[in-house]
């Protein structure tokens, strides 16, 4: 099936119709989505600023991660769930939205950056847990921060192009 045909079909599913035709479906999801993304960005920024050596230099990197990441994942889960639901309501329009495509691309980049950091750089964390972070960790922090700022911005511009 062509992607657009699939997305047209998706819009006609009962769940999608509740989102697009229901009086409060979209607005309620949108409210929760934005609140969730603020927590995702904020908690990731706490970790990134430590990796960059800008803040929390007196705290261990592992300790910051242990505190911040559970909140990040829960908020990210809520953001994805509400985001997917909002997408089903107007799937074709989102698919053709330039800002939305950029947002997905940047989410992908942020994901790859996270995997590289987690499986390669973070393995040697014992060496710099309480000290200045190596270049690879600082780079991961900078890329992550830039990606997430752009994700928020493109998210805002997605709505701007939609309505």
């Amino acid at each position, binding site marked *: 099936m062509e992607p657009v045909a699939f997305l047209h079909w998706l819009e006609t599913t009962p769940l999608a119709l509740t989102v697009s035709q229901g*009086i*409060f479906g979209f607005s309620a999801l949108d409210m929760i989505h934005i609140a969730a993304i603020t*927590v995702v960005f904020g908690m990731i920024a706490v970790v990134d600023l430590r990796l960059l050596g800008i803040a929390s230099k007196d705290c261990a990197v592992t*300790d910051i991660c242990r505190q911040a990441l559970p909140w990040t994942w829960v908020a990210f889960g809520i953001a994805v769930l509400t985001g997917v639901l909002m997408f089903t309501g107007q799937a074709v329009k989102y698919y053709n939205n330039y800002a939305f495509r950029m947002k997905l691309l940047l989410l992908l980049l942020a994901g790859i950056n996270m995997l590289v950091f987690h499986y390669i750089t973070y393995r040697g964390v014992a060496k710099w847990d309480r000290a200045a972070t190596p270049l690879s960790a600082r780079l991961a922090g900078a890329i992550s921060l830039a990606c997430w700022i752009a994700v*928020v911005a493109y998210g805002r511009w997605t709505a701007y192009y939609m309505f």
Partner: protein
Amino acid sequence: MADLAQWFTGLPFSLAMRRIAWLFPLLQTVHILAIGMMLSSVIMVSLRLWGVSRTQTIAARGHRYLPWIWTSLVVLTVTGVALAVGNPRTLRDPALQVKLWMMVPAIAATLILAVAMRGEALWEKNARARGMAGLAATATLILWLGVTLAGRGRWMANLIG
């Protein structure tokens, strides 16, 4: 509020906001990012006061995150006022009024936390004081989350009537 909306509409800045298309989403983006810094700072403070993390002294935790909370609040106020000037209709929105009123106890609770986090010695020894601090942190976080949600709560006006 209606008078204020009227006055805002006539301001040159309000006109500029409505003419320059990208200004609105740009300020909204900055506003959303600042909410993120505010909420994450409140969460990090709360984690210490709840006792989830004990690796830092309470005073050190406050020293690290309280300046971010106050800076975020300034950025949020500036961008928030600019957004209201650019779209004065929003002042008639009951959700915005709920949000502004909710900010009063939220700021008060944050101030109480800020002052209390200095009196470290008192906390560490007194279990009851620690319990109170944990509750105060929870209240502060819930209030700021409420402010965040109300910021996007215009649709609820239809729900209420």
